[in-house]
């Protein structure tokens, strides 16, 4: 029997449209914080910044903590609806967390890190929607 090899996340992240100032894009399993795919823009050959990179793992874990905390808050706040995205602003970087809502992807979230000096936050948020569409296509 031929073995079916599945490599869709890496392919999807490598063809994402470029967002100005994007440092990295990481796809994370929401329930466990498991990094299932990562793209470091400075390393498209995957030599660093991949799913197993320690820094990527820690940033994804911190983002997962935020997602779970906000989800608990949302669950107890009738009328707010599910959250669309979280933005964490540091002096040097923005982190944008966006849960995927498309069928078959609803247990994942996308974490994009932007260099604050090169990024336009409003434009980046708009571009992230295109990025999400590309990933779930």
């Amino acid at each position: 029997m031929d073995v079916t090899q599945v490599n869709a996340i890496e392919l999807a992240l490598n063809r994402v449209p470029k967002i100005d100032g994007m440092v990295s894009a990481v796809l994370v399993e929401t329930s466990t914080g498991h990094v299932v795919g990562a793209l470091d823009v400075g390393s498209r050959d995957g030599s660093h910044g991949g799913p197993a990179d320690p820094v990527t793992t820690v940033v994804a874990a911190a983002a997962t903590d935020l997602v779970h905390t906000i989800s608990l808050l949302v669950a107890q706040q009738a009328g707010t609806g599910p959250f669309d995205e979280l933005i964490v602003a540091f002096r040097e970087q923005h982190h944008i967390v966006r849960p995927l809502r498309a069928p078959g992807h609803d247990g994942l979230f996308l974490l994009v890190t932007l260099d604050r000096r090169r990024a336009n936050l409003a434009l980046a948020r708009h571009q992230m929607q295109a990025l999400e569409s590309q990933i779930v296509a």
Partner: protein
Amino acid sequence: MVGTRSNGRSSGTTGGSATLHEPSDTATDRIRQLAADGKTGVLQIVGSPGGLVYIADGHIVYAESLGTPGAEVAVLRATRPDEAAWAATVTAMQTRPGRKAAAKHADEVVARRTLPPVGLDAALQSATADALLDMLAGYGVTVTRTRFVNGQRPWIALGRPLTPDVALAETARRLRLLAAVGQRVRPDDEIVRAAATGPVAVRLSPQQWDLVRLCPERRTPRDLAWSVGRGVLATTIEVCELIELGVLKTASSAARGGRARDGRAGGRPGHRTVSFLTGAVPGIAGPEVS
């Protein structure tokens, strides 16, 4: 569902009393050696629950434990089967022959390309990591011996194979999460819906509703994971959050006078989540693992 599961691990209100074990050296040393030798084949892990680790050219390409739903469960669940038929399928899949038949069926579904590829890739990675944790470490896990068979390949494989270091680092991270969530609920603890004690309104996600609607009777997070086609650790964490929201409770908390393992009152909404950052960083103190 009180009794003994087909994976040989006890379930029930006392099911969580087993010690939490670090990854077995018997298995991890063998995996590292096979990887160093660049082997291709399957490592059979004999023990409780036991399972298979597929290796290709020295990299881990897939793993399956008898105690966790494999990628075939996620694939078949995504085809939205009839609920009654699905319950029978789930029971059958918890045996070796049933699992093999399900894998064949799932392979046909994957070949038709009806599933979103990114979702399938994520499910495959998750199932592999879930299985490695379940057979190498955790509550009541034992590894008695291993046996390697050259040349065998899985029905589906990771496109980005894992080195043993990467796979075992993820297993260790998941073990720390299991230890943390185990303060509230463990994979083989029985859970039930909590009776409403007042006008508490909560907004649940579709994934959370999937779990709640399956709990009119006593279930365990492991049972639920098979039913919804998601990982055992993932489902245990989700159940923990539903307990925090006061929607579910452990059957054993009632026996402890309504208090959870960590001494907190059970069945009342809370605001505490598992710390994933603690799980990701080994140096941060967490619950003890023997």
